[in-house]
């Protein structure tokens, strides 16, 4: 019965509704798969007791009118606060922290019947693109380059979520995306990941990184599952003042696969110098697939694209420096041992030096610098102006009739863990070059696996949609998924 964990959410849901499968069996299969996959280091806090209890409750209410995720075992990124369960954002500064409350997104998932298998590894405070900044250690990608057993990154920051879904440890996982943290790892492991429009999912109870950019979203085995899970995660929440008070359409019902008459934009600025030929071909193939499906393909220009990463590396660290000020050793988490005569300032400084990893410290200090007196206008306000121009580029494209935009998801396939250790931080930041524009403009974006590179590693394409039109975006992604027919799975070695 080990194949149970390979089921999609939709298939498991339908089998449970027909009485052919119990959540108890499915959950046990996932718990076993997790225990056997220690080498991936994806699950960092396992919650088998909670999972079994939720599965029992789900089996007791199953039937045609059971909620949408009834009995579906999921993994939860460590960034989400889960009541009574460690929620550390993969940081030593939150060691031992067990929230007294539940995030809105996980509350909604549980209300929809979902089962929590445990918490998933990630980059510390979601700052990273390779899951190498985690206090729990690196996550390993279940994919390998042919017969080479070098460990590869699953991407980041939602690397544990990506690895767990790709390795069939859970049926789906939550992720969060501030600059590409759902879409880049999804592409690196051959799964689907959607970042919805800013404001679609409540941020309440999700450890904040950069509040004007952070959005939660699902990471799943296919587009249909993404639609089902996003539905359960979405909706207005009075506890998040940026949460949108607008109706959530039926995302799964939108999946007709019919995209005739849709206009797909191909932005010329995403054709980067030195782009690998395989990525060029993937993009051209994806364009042809959408054209064959009846979409109209148009070349578009998003002229401020090249300034997205530098703007992001002002805005995100600025917001992070402010958000992470709360980790002061007073109310929760780690407090440094003090020497005789140390006062409150020494307590703050030692606590934060011990608790934050190197990348987090660097970003907090960059953020502090760009917000400091004399530099606020030159850096922070300028970056916010550029952000407005980046958004305007997209607005103009949509006004001209574009329904969705097709781009590569990442500039390469998954790279080796440790390979970027000697590179300067900016080389790592370039991983998000195709995804970060979408966060700055607050738009929905989805990564869909569409091919393998010459080393046998998955590659993904990204579709970017109009604000609040995730339903339409998911349908275009569904059409692309059907045309690409990506079915490859990593060969099990763990």
């Amino acid at each position, binding site marked *: 019965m080990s194949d149970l964990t390979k089921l999609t959410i939709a298939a498991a849901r339908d089998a449970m509704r027909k009485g052919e499968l119990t959540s108890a069996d499915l959950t046990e299969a996932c718990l076993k798969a997790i225990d056997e996959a220690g080498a991936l280091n994806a699950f960092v806090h396992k919650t088998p007791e909670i999972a079994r209890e939720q599965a029992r409750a789900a089996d007791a209410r199953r039937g045609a009118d059971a909620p949408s995720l009834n009995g579906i075992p999921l993994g939860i990124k460590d960034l989400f606060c889960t009541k009574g369960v460690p929620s550390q954002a993969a940081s030593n500064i939150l060691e031992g922290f*067990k929230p007294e409350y539940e995030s809105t997104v996980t509350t909604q998932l549980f209300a929809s019947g979902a089962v929590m298998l445990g918490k998933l590894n990630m980059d510390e405070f979601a700052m990273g693109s390779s899951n190498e900044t985690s206090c729990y250690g690196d996550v390993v990608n279940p994919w390998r380059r042919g017969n080479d057993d070098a460990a590869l990154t699953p991407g980041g920051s939602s690397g544990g979520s990506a690895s767990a879904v790709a390795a069939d440890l859970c049926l789906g996982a939550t992720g969060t995306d501030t600059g590409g943290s759902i879409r880049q790892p999804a592409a690196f492991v051959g799964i689907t990941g959607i970042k919805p429009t800013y404001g679609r999912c409540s941020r309440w109870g999700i450890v904040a990184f950069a509040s004007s950019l952070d959005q939660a979203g699902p990471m799943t085995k296919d587009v249909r599952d993404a639609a089902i899970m996003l539905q359960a995660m979405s909706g207005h929440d009075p506890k998040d003042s940026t949460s949108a008070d607008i109706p959530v359409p039926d995302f799964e019902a939108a999946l007709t696969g019919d995209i005739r008459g849709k206009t797909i934009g191909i932005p010329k600025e995403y054709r980067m110098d030195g782009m690998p030929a395989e990525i060029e071909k993937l993009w051209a193939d994806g364009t042809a697939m959408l054209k064959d499906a009846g979409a109209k393909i148009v070349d578009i220009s998003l002229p401020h694209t090249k300034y997205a990463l530098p703007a992001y590396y002002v805005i995100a660290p600025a917001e992070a420096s402010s958000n992470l000020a709360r980790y002061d050793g007073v109310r929760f988490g780690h407090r440094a041992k003090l020497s005789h005569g140390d006062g409150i300032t020494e307590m703050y400084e030692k606590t934060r030096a011990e608790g934050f990893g190197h990348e987090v410290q660097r970003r907090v200090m960059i953020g502090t610098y760009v917000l400091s007196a004399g530099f606020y206008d030159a850096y922070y306000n300028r970056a916010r102006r550029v952000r407005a121009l980046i958004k305007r580029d997209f607005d103009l494209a949509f006004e001209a009739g574009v329904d969705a935009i097709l781009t590569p998801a990442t500039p390469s396939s998954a790279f080796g863990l440790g390979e970027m250790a000697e590179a*300067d931080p900016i080389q790592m930041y370039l991983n998000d070059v195709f995804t970060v524009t979408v966060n700055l403009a607050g738009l929905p974006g989805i990564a869909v696996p569409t091919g393998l590179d010459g080393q046998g590693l998955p590659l993904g394409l990204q579709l970017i949609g109009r604000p609040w039109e995730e339903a339409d975006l998911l349908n275009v992604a569904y059409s692309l998924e059907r045309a690409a027919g990506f079915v490859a799975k990593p060969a099990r070695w763990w």
Partner: protein
Amino acid sequence: MSIDVDTARRVAKLARIKVEDEALPALASEFSAILGFIEQLNEVDVEGVEPMTSVTPMRLKRRDDVVTDGNQQAAVLKNAPDAREGFFAVPKVVE
């Protein structure tokens, strides 16, 4: 812009992160590299463009000014590294 060791020390102090003196030169050079990358933004003509405050065109919601929660002292203090007599405890602040 090139960041010198004194600036790096000042930023670390502002961020309330203890950085040992011997680590400051490397930190300063990392800052310089990142700020050099950021300075591409100076190429953009931003004349007349308002800094973005909200990515979606919506007003922040207001709620009624009423008490909606409370009486949770134990829960609030539950995760404190040091709590005494119903308060967070910290080293002496006032001399």
